[in-house]
């Protein structure tokens, strides 16, 4: 899923300074799962915003709402009737949600309340870790199910580099060396021969390097 973390309160307060009435908008999907922008976080931030502004002597009217999905026009349409009442939308969704709102309501300022982080998986309660960089041409089948693009600090395809130490990456003892993980898993799978094959330079045109990407499924057009 897409992970996000809330922006620092100071930055948030600064960004809403010009406004007197806002819609604080959460999303029920990824940001709910990673506890950054669901119903609960909307309520918390709403209270903090009101209080913060009250202390400054500039009260802020905050209306709270959490959409089923903020990156989907179908749900974003729900705002059409009420949106005129607000000076701005403060979105607690990921960057996709923020932009969907901005596109649909061009006259309305949309402020992001979270920093969208990465595509991650939940490792433990309260811990999310980057697992995929969306390169558009998945190689996990050759690398023991561990991604060298997202999980090796140097995106090495024929690793590990000389900095790998005791299973950890050279950048920090807190970061696993992806190539140690890959090698361990290949051994477990009895697929060590996959390592000996030279992996060719990657075609990054399927990744962000090929320009902004779209998926068009004509079979799904209405």
């Amino acid at each position, binding site marked *: 899923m897409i992970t996000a973390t809330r922006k620092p309160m100071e930055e948030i307060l600064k960004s809403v300074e010009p406004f007197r009435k806002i819609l604080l908008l959460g999303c029920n999907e990824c940001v709910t799962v990673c506890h950054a922008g669901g119903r609960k976080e909307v309520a918390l931030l709403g209270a903090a915003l009101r209080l913060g502004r009250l202390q400054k002597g500039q009260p802020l009217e905050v209306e709270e709402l959490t959409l089923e999905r903020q990156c989907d026009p179908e749900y974003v349409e729900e705002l059409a009737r009420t949106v005129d009442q607000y000076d701005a939308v403060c979105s607690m969704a990921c960057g996709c949600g923020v932009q969907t709102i901005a596109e649909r309501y061009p006259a309305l300022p949309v402020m992001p309340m979270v920093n969208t982080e990465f595509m991650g998986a939940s490792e433990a309660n309260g811990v999310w870790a980057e697992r995929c960089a969306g390169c558009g041409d998945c190689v996990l089948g050759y690398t023991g199910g561990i991604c060298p693009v997202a999980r090796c600090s140097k995106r*090495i395809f*024929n*690793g590990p580099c000389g900095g*790998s130490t005791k*299973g950890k990456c050279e950048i920090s003892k807190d970061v696993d060396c992806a190539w140690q993980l890959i*090698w361990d898993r290949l051994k477990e799978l009895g697929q060590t021969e996959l390592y000996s094959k*030279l992996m060719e*330079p990657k075609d*990054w045109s399927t990744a962000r390097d090929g320009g902004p990407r779209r998926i068009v499924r004509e079979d799904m057009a209405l």
Partner: protein
Amino acid sequence: MKSDSNLEKVLAAGHFAVTGELGPPRGANLEAVKEKAAHLVGMVDAVNVTDNQTAVVRMASWAVSLTIKEMGLEPNYQMVCRDRNRLAMQSDILGAAALGINTMLCLSGDHPSFGDHPQAANVHDIDSIQQLAMIKRMRDEGKFLGGDDIDTPPKMFVGAAANPFGDPFELRVLRLGKKVAAGADFIQTQCIYNMERFAEYMRQAHDMGLTENTKLLAGVTPLKSAGMAKYMANRVPGMDVPKAVVDRIAGQPKEKQAEEGIKLLCEQIEQLKEMPGVAGIHLMAIEWEHRVPEIVERAGLLPRPQV
């Protein structure tokens, strides 16, 4: 001969090769380069010119390579994958070849988080093994990575680095094998202090036939002080400095530690000369270029062969 590289000629003639290292300055001062390089003339067969080492910005490796070439040294032009995509790499390789640079070393590069621009975007378009294969292909097949023909292919003697002490140990020789398979003409290793472990690595590499077509130069670095020994032991990722080595340097009074470091180094070089598959040494005398003549003299490595 694949190139006009002096290192290639020395190795092909069967001599025990000696390469040195020179870190470019952190400014546009060419005099500083010349001063450092002057100590190395006649002392080594090639000089590695580092490329933004430890992810700190320095004068361009190709510019320093060209400068020392003009002084009669053979530059070993280092290029890291961190800072350049495949377009920039190939264009720099062509430029270097056109200027008479004949020897190159392919590296991943230290991660930017270590350097002076931890905020930098890091490229890592291709990895060091793919880079090696790319240069070999440019040279031998006259093809760019994209497939087009090169009208005048760059004639490079091309090498790679190996760290016998990184983990996992069992992958180290396999990874060396990958570099050899990708076309490494020569290999320079990370600094060696754990001789036993290195001997084991060499034995495996030799048994696998990896030293037949690729020349392996064993990396050595003089320890200047107990502080440096401890730093290398504890702070440098992928470095293996046994406690006995640290203790030996630390056991000397401060003013005698550098001398002890050189003595240890000479002993190591003697051991390396005897090790099957070791074709030479790569002497990384970090910011100690002025001591190189004394070191190579005492290690019995002079005069350097004229080939």
